[in-house]
């Protein structure tokens, strides 16, 4: 691969005796959009949470932007500065306003002044199409709006990589599109993205590659055309039939 920004080599992860990742290898190029799908419990969340070290892997090697992941605080700082993450449950800070949610990281971790952080926050709020909700508290927003705030909060840190863990799974159906639109726009801007999702329409439109996981392993990787027209493994075939007919 020409310019891999993420390299995972033979990564294994255990929770006690249970092996959640089995010898997973995956390279992601700079600017690439990867969609990960697979049945519940197959290790999708664990995989992307290893990339920003919310989970520590036990075997193998992960390199992000040239930094190899270890427990050293310096390395961790470098990685976290480059990698943004959006969670299924939004995880906004409920006691802070939208603007305060967005400004906290830039002010405390990047050392921006209040005015700089505010300008940046308002810019990204405009980008996720909710510039007028800055002074509201998260609970006053719809789920779709909350998730867009969460995306803006990550973008305020100006990461090189964005990880999405089922960003639309907790949303009412009518709000899924507004979040996917923002993500599609982000993809068009050249952001490196790894997205765990079962939104196959989005995957087909946006993904450069689709990764299918099952039982802690990467079972199949391919371009959307290849994968959707002719999935190789029977497990992927079954999975696709299940969600497409759902």
């Amino acid at each position, binding site marked *: 691969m020409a310019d891999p920004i993420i390299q995972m080599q033979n990564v294994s992860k255990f929770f006690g005796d249970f092996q959640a990742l089995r010898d997973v290898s995956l390279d992601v190029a700079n600017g690439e959009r990867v969609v990960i799908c697979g049945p519940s419990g197959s290790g999708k969340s664990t995989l992307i949470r290893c990339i920003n070290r919310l989970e520590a892997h036990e075997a193998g090697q992960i390199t992000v932007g040239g930094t190899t992941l270890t427990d050293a605080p310096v390395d961790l700082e470098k990685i*976290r500065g480059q990698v943004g993450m959006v*969670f299924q*449950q939004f995880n*906004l*800070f409920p006691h802070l306003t939208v603007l305060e949610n967005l400004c*906290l*990281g830039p002010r405390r*971790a990047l050392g921006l002044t209040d005015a700089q952080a505010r300008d940046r926050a308002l810019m990204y709020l405009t980008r996720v199409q909710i510039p007028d909700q800055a002074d509201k508290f998260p609970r006053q927003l719809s789920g779709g709006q909350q998730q867009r705030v969460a995306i803006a*909060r*990550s973008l305020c840190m100006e990461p090189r990589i964005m990880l999405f863990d089922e960003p639309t799974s907790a949303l009412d159906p009518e709000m899924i599109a507004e979040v996917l639109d923002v993500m599609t726009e982000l993809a068009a801007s050249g952001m490196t993205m790894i997205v765990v999702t079962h939104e196959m329409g989005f995957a087909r439109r946006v993904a450069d590659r689709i990764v299918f996981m099952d039982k802690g392993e990467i079972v199949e990787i391919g371009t959307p055309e290849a994968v959707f027209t002719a999935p190789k493994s029977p497990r992927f075939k079954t999975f696709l039939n299940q969600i497409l007919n759902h």
Partner: protein
Amino acid sequence: MFRILTLLSFTLLLSGCSGNWGWYVVDPTTPTGMTNLKFMASGAYNTILMSVTAISISVVVGLLVALPGLSTKRGWRMFNRTYVEIVRAVPILVLILWVYYGLPTLSGITLNVFWAGVLALALSDSAFQAEIFRAGIQSIARGQYEAAQTISLNYRDTMRYVILPQAIRRILPALGNQLVYMLKMSSLVSVIGMQELTRKANELVVVEYRPLEIYTILVLEYLVLILIVSTGVRWLERRLKASDTA
């Protein structure tokens, strides 16, 4: 006629001396009663000052003891458990006597009555505060820590801006209870001569031989103090809730 009148006044006089009540000692319409009441109320200042100082210290110490209790490292958790178990096991009265009479011999530092009382009350309360903080912090969802990590906040900023503001809202009723408890327990410091509400009442009883009336007033004094505190706490809770939703 004269005999009847004498008999009547004699009976009245008798009942005034040997009956159950002699409110004249605390009757605000008489000069003596007023002086006595003022004397009793003058202890309120020390009761409040001592309780508020002690709880300010115990909240800080409690938090500092609670944090290692949440550590992943066993040694830190051991420190937390040991502190809490030992301090919680000592009766407050014993702690007051130990700090006032014992500590100077041990350390060479002599504390005046006020600071000995404050130290003993704070020490005793800090174990409870530690438990309250630990439970409060533990009640905050893991996603809040993870979101803070992904926007590169360090441990201190995560606690200060994300976790503690939410935890404190949750434990506010418990902190209010501790202040009420502290106001009551401060009465024990009277045994080492602290001029607070209970001590003043005791001294007046020695002079006036009217324990029932004087201690009844003492009960009312504590009642008023504690009603003020619980009203204040409820007001604060409402205000914090309002700032969340408004």
